[in-house]
């Protein structure tokens, strides 16, 4: 299981990204995980909880956008429907070999950050 290392990287990168926004806490981090990223979303979420626990962002949620790979037919252009986690060898329409496209995402997309209100200066 390498999801723990990835969760640590996501948290570290997220903290860097909000550095210029002053003190505050991360509410949510949205990531894209592709079907061919070799990362299990449930394990990643589990690891994330362990990573943020005890940090300044202990309530931060991880939102995983699952990005399936697409199976395309280069002969007829059909995008083949398939059950999740299964693969088709031939195009259901023209029976030519299918190719796999996409699904290799492992990206941090955006962070919802709650910045502390700036202190009111006394006149």
């Amino acid at each position: 299981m390498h999801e723990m290392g990835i969760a640590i990287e996501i948290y570290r990168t997220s903290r860097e990204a909000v550095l210029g926004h002053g003190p505050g806490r991360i509410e949510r981090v949205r990531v894209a995980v592709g079907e061919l990223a070799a990362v299990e979303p449930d394990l990643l979420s589990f690891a994330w909880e362990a990573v943020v626990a005890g940090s300044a962002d202990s309530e931060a949620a991880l939102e995983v956008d699952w990005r399936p790979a697409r199976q395309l037919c280069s002969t007829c252009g059909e995008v083949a429907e398939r059950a999740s986690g299964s693969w088709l060898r031939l195009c259901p329409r023209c029976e030519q070999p299918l190719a796999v496209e996409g699904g290799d995402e492992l990206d941090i997309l955006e962070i919802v950050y709650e910045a502390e209100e700036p202190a009111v200066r006394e006149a």
Partner: protein
Amino acid sequence: MKTIVTVKRKALASNDERAGQLRAMLAERGTLALNLISSPGSGKTTLLEATLRELGGELRCAVLEGDVATERDAERIRALGVPAHQILTGGACHLDARLVQGGLEEGRIPEVDILFIENVGNLICPTSYDLGEDLKVVLLSVTEGDDKPFKYPAIFARAEVAVISKADLLPHVPFDLAAVKEQIATLNPRATILLTSSLTGQGMGAWYDLLRARLATKREETA
């Protein structure tokens, strides 16, 4: 005040940066680097032993061995007179670019023509980590079963070369070679598929030729 910060950064960007540094260093040296990935016991080290016996006389080779524990694999390589460094991950299931940089620190591995990086035996976790290699090579032995490419699609989609190993055992195990080739072709139509036996030498000529050709290409690109 709630702010939405758009990031659009790869989760493993810091690994990718280090892999980029490694790639630049290896290009400068004209070294071809391979990242060998498979489940434990598919024959990565045995393939390397046969390869080093064949190519050791004509090319300078070295091996970085990744394992959770023991120096055993590096010792097997050194017994052939080939420089090897053992990276012990201490439990981690994969190598990353930082570990490879550490393995290449001064003096550990000389400048070579081909650097073989044998990853920790695992078909999943090593997939996500770029090590600065020129090509990923996945091994699948015939005893592992003929359903593995579709079961572990990520590595078969990424590996440029798929070595189906232990071909000498084919007569003794149920293994539908055509089905495996079809699965790999579906996930990666450009993959080169080789059927080999490190013990009998079957199919090894094509593997050696591939290494020589890739080294020549790299030399031309980086000259």
